[in-house]
């Protein structure tokens, strides 16, 4: 599905809207495009890595047969392990 999307987007170049608007016309006139692109890539790289790490953590916990760590997001460390917020 992703590949199909890429083919559509690349295949339509240089148009964003076919025969109405070119990509160059549609681009922002603001500066800092590289900066925002970098920020987005960094953010999503961090989120992507975190997702993988957390999924692995969940899998490990599940294998060990544990339910959940605590009820409250970051409550006191001594909080009793009961229920669980999924």
């Amino acid at each position: 599905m992703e590949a199909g999307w890429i083919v559509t987007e690349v295949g339509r170049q240089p148009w964003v809207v076919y025969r109405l608007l070119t990509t160059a016309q549609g681009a922002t006139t603001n500066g800092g495009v590289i900066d925002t692109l970098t920020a987005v890539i960094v953010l999503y790289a961090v989120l992507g890595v975190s997702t993988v790490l957390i999924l692995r953590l969940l899998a490990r916990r599940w294998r060990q047969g544990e339910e959940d760590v605590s009820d409250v997001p970051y409550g006191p460390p001594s909080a009793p392990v009961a229920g669980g917020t999924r």
Partner: protein
Amino acid sequence: MTVEIVGGILLAVLTLYAILAGADFGAGLWDLLAGGDVTGEAPRELIDETITPVWESNHVWLIFALVIFWTAFPGAFAAVMTATALPLWLAVFGVVLRGAGFAFRKEVETLRWRRLLGATFAFSSLITPFFMGTVVGAVATGQVKLGVQHSTLATWTGTTSILIGCLFVAVCGYEAAVFLIGEAAGRRDGTLERYFRRRATIAGAAAGALSLAVLLTLRSSDVMLYHRLIGRALPLVILAGVCGIAVIALLLTRRSRGLRVLTALGVTAVVWGWGVAQYPILLPGTGLTLSAGAAPHATLLALIIVAIIAVVLVAPGFLLLFRLHGRQLLEPDASG
């Protein structure tokens, strides 16, 4: 007429976003201000239980609003996106980090990471509505010009814009506290009920004071909007004020009946007051009207049909979600 219908749909969607996502952002704000691990445990648990089932779906309305805005009013959309690029980027980062922080914080094991991710969620809940407010302020004060080429700091950092940013934060906190009073009452937790009652009163008073301050600064930043707010839109402004005072009175006399409805009605009156005051101007300060800035008629017609279909598809799910949530059937203890 078509363009008025589309404008009305856009305002209605913005109203839903302001109420539902506003309460959601506000819940994050109270999480941020709940204090240390021990003192903040009870309120954080209530907040977490309350927003877990609804926090993602509430942001559907932002997507609706953006799609309607760029399809129906492309020129104005481009101008807003260009002129207020920085606060919009910061709001986007806030939305992304907020969701990620909220979802991840429950799954990590060490307290340090939980705190870090929780703080990400809570801090994002503070900055996102603030920057969204500054964008609305930039539009309302006519700082967004048609065909603008570059964003400048001055566009969205005027007194009115900053005040509207603060107003958004206060309103979010107010809505969330009012909703959380009901949640605490439903759990027969008198301590938490009083806790959020106090916070709702403070946030409500702050929102009221900021609204008045915004109105006063509009006298110099956008005199036309000011005159329309105390002219054509006056009934809605009064309605908003009456709702606000009534909610504060209910809070102080420890009553709960009608609290949520009046809060929602007050916010609705503010959003529609802005819409009515601005009509038929799309971008104040440019003279661009709704009809002049609108997409072709066929596009608008298609948009209305799509909006109706979307509501028909989404509404039953939402009603079921809120019903189950209202009966507290979505909590881990109840579902087993």
